[in-house]
């Protein structure tokens, strides 16, 4: 493996100092001279026809600059990553409570909000559908005229029925999962400007500036080149800022008024209007032989995407791809439906459909192990995917597979080794302890059939430093620090000599999204190619300076050296000065196209994947048998990210993922009844606090180097929050003997399950 100076080191985050000083300007911190303040009027009904919109009174209010409706959207009145089915401003119909009906720009935020109250909208309420299974029925109200089933996936291999007959053990269950909220701490916010030539700049936290640019351009009917999007920094995203949030509203305000504009929405508006994780109902039937070999898996998954598609289509595909877990299964019958309802829109969220099905399949596996009297870790080892295996969709695991490595490290962890000792010591007699383990894999990148590409730029600055540009935004995950480390090792310079440009269509080429555990692999590989091109350009100049042939140059740390005459060297700094004197620049680009799986699944895009990250997680829980409350006492997280570019950063991802997955397992759910969101803020949406987190989270990084990755790296941002949820529910079973098939496993649900167990 290539020797590295920076990669693999705990390098300090490049944004750390500005963040601890409170000096970093988030989008909500920006103010522009003469700016107006925007506010969005959301729907009053979850499903209704709009008969009339009267903005007269609002427009007459002192301080109101503009009031815009669907008639003021110059281009396509729609947005959506997969299909633009969500109106920018609704004209004829609203389909959920977050739908936007009008947009106000005013001299102050207070005036804008007051004006919203003066807009008169006449609605004709329609029957609504809030249950996705009901939405699939012919008799259901239609959310979209095209039908309520947005996407259907069906994959069959082998013969599941025959396997069910032959099997030693068959388990069959129905699971349901909650509408988890991203709960990024910074609500959606942004500012925008427009110049005399109608060039628009939008600063708004997001996850793919070039796609934002496309979506804004489409809605405005403008050339995308006239729109600059800045997405970095975002105060958290987790997939929840992947879709358009406020970008188009900001653009409309500046376009119609010619003045800068700012919108900051409240937490309540963010909750009602923003994306969530898809709630899923999962029916699963799994068969195994007497030795624990999984013989067959049948799954039927219904996913509630709410009123609009966003990435609901790809999410159900991803769920199906991951529905057999990270295991070999020869006979599968897997079917998924992505269904429209009048609920809040669901879209991308860390894990992208894997969380829901992993909860189901990892519970199934524990039930099988229980019936066979087999160890929970042993059954996973028995079935774990290895390189060269055929996975559930019939695709070969062609890239690195680190699952066994994570299982072995988990087995050797302190928590696993002394689990019986720890289980025997609950903190009170009415509390019971249990241990749970679960595994997951997580497709990296956008998958087969979707263009997955990324570019990077490197420029030698006049002072000898290097500016590197990658558009995958910094959303908190730390990719900019990792890019600096990767770039410094490829360029062969100090990290202190790298200037990072991130998430800005004005200063970076399109590197794709900060999603899908893809930015390190994409950006790193693009940087590698850019550094090779940079070295060619540096070599040419160095040869001129040293008066040697161009092919006689070797690039060493911070300098170029003559191969034939090693005492002839010239530093990058001198090269930079030389180039500057000549009035030239050295700038290189790297363009990287993702490799894809050889397997093609006809009719589907986004599945299967070629690369996966792998992970095993363990939870020790303590269940209060009097209240049903579950506490996670300790957790072990063993991710395989490929090469850990910044181990401390991977630990941070891992710990954050454990706690997010713990919230998913135990407390978090955005409750919507009859289309009305009831949990609108953190008073009723229960996020884990510092007192709820495990007393100890041990992260053991199990690197299985991926030869096609930058220094062997893949991605790890998502997998870290996936198997911990079933590890916790499996631990609840181990503690008190009840299987939790519905999460969150709240105190009430566990208590009820305990009572029902007593009765039966």
């Amino acid at each position: 493996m290539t020797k590295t100076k920076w990669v693999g080191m705990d390098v300090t985050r490049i944004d750390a100092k500005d963040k601890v000083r409170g000096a970093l300007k988030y989008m909500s911190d920006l103010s522009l001279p003469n700016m107006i303040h925007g506010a969005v009027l959301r729907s009053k009904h979850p499903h209704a026809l709009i008969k009339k919109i009267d903005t007269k009174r609002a427009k007459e209010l002192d301080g109101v600059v503009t009031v815009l409706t669907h008639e003021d959207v110059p281009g396509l009145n729609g947005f959506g990553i997969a299909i633009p089915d969500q109106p920018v401003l609704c004209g004829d119909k609203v389909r959920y409570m977050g739908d936007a009906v009008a947009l106000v720009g005013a001299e102050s935020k207070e005036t804008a909000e007051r004006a919203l109250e003066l807009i008169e909208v006449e609605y004709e309420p329609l029957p609504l559908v809030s249950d996705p299974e009901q939405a699939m029925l012919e008799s259901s109200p239609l959310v979209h005229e095209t039908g309520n089933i947005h996407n259907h996936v069906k994959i069959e291999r082998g013969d599941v029925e025959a396997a069910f007959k032959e099997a030693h053990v068959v388990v069959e269950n129905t699971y349901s999962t909650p509408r988890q909220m991203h709960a990024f701490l910074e609500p959606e916010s942004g500012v925008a400007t427009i110049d005399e030539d109608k060039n628009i700049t939008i600063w708004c936290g997001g996850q793919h500036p070039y796609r934002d640019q496309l979506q804004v351009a489409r809605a405005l009917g403008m050339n995308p080149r006239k729109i600059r999007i800045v997405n970095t920094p975002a105060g958290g995203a987790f997939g929840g800022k992947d879709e358009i949030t406020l970008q188009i509203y900001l653009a409309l305000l500046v376009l119609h008024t010619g003045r800068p504009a700012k919108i900051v929405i409240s937490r309540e508006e963010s909750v009602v209007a923003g994306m969530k994780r898809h709630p899923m109902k999962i029916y699963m039937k799994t068969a195994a032989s007497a030795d624990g070999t999984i013989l067959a898996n049948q799954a039927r998954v219904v996913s509630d995407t709410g009123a609009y598609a966003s990435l609901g289509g790809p999410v159900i595909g991803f769920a199906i791809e991951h529905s057999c877990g990270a295991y070999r299964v020869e006979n599968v019958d897997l079917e998924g439906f992505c269904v429209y309802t009048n609920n809040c829109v669901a879209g991308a969220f860390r894990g992208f459909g894997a969380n829901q099905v992993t909860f189901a399949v990892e519970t199934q596996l524990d039930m099988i192990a229980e019936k066979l009297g087999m160890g929970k870790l042993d059954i996973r080892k028995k079935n774990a995917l290895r390189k060269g295996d055929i996975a559930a969709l019939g695709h070969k695991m062609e890239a690195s597979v680190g699952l066994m490595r994570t299982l072995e490290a988990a087995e050797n962890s302190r928590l696993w080794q002394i689990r019986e000792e720890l289980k025997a010591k609950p903190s009170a007699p009415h509390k019971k302890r249990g241990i749970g383990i679960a595994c997951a894999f997580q497709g990296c990148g956008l998958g087969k059939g979707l263009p997955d590409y990324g570019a990077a730029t490197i420029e030698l600055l006049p002072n000898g430093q290097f500016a590197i540009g990658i558009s995958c935004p910094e959303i908190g995950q730390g990719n900019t620090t990792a890019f600096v480390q990767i770039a410094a090792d490829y360029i062969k310079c100090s990290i202190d000599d790298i200037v990072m440009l991130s998430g800005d269509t004005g200063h970076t080429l399109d590197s794709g999204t900060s999603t899908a555990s893809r930015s390190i692999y994409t950006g790193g590989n693009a940087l590698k190619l850019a550094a090779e091109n940079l070295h060619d350009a540096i070599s040419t100049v160095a040869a001129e300076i040293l008066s040697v042939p161009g092919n006689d140059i070797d690039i060493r740390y911070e300098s170029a050296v003559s191969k034939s005459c090693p005492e002839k060297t010239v530093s990058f700094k001198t090269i930079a000065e030389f180039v500057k004197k000549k009035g030239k620049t050295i700038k290189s680009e790297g363009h990287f196209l993702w490799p894809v799986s050889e397997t093609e699944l006809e009719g589907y895009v986004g599945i299967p994947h070629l690369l996966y990250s792998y992970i095993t997680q363990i939870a020790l829980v303590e269940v209060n048998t009097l209240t049903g409350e579950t506490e996670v006492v300790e957790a072990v997280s063993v991710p395989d990210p490929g090469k850990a570019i910044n181990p401390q950063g991977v630990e941070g991802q891992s710990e954050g993922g454990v706690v997010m997955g713990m919230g998913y397992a135990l407390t978090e759910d955005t409750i919507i009844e009859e289309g009305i969101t009831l949990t609108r803020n953190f008073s009723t949406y229960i996020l884990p606090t510092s007192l709820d987190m495990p007393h100890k989270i041990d992260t053991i990084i199990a690197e299985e180097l991926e030869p096609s990755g930058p220094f062997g790296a893949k991605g790890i941002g998502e997998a870290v929050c996936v198997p911990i949820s079933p590890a916790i529910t499996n631990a609840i079973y181990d503690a008190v003997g009840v299987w939790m098939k519905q999460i969150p496993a709240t105190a009430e649900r566990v208590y009820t399950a305990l009572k029902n167990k007593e009765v039966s």
Partner: protein
Amino acid sequence: MKKVEPEHKKLITFTVNGDDVEVEISSSDRLIDVLRNKLELTGTKEGCGIGECGACTVLMDGKPVNSCLVPAFQVEGSEIETVEGLDKSGKLHPLQEAFVEHTAIQCGFCTPGMLMSALALLRENPKPTREEVARAISGNLCRCTGYQQIIEAIEDAATKLKALE
């Protein structure tokens, strides 16, 4: 045309990070509005607006408060400390240094509030247990880190501050 009554304005004086300030406020202003919009101290963040997330934590007469819940008129005569005051000397505060070293920061939006809660803790209790640290920041939500690196950073800062004495 709707008639809007003029807002009641009032001049208040207080100190921010040791400096005297005089600000004209309206009756609906909250402390966070005064800090962010009038004094341009945008280090203090708003995450929920109802005192649940703690991103807006500042110290008021030494006690941590959610500045989104404090009406501005109540601030008259008090001493306010914000994240911008921590490195006023030009050098990072040991807490800030520890957050940097431990990567107790991801998106960073909760960081200023976390630091202020931690500062209040260490002033009152220079040798906190891990449990006490966790309790002191339990009103500050963090969605990125899972808290462990933050707790370790605060413990480390406590040790370093003790050594300085």
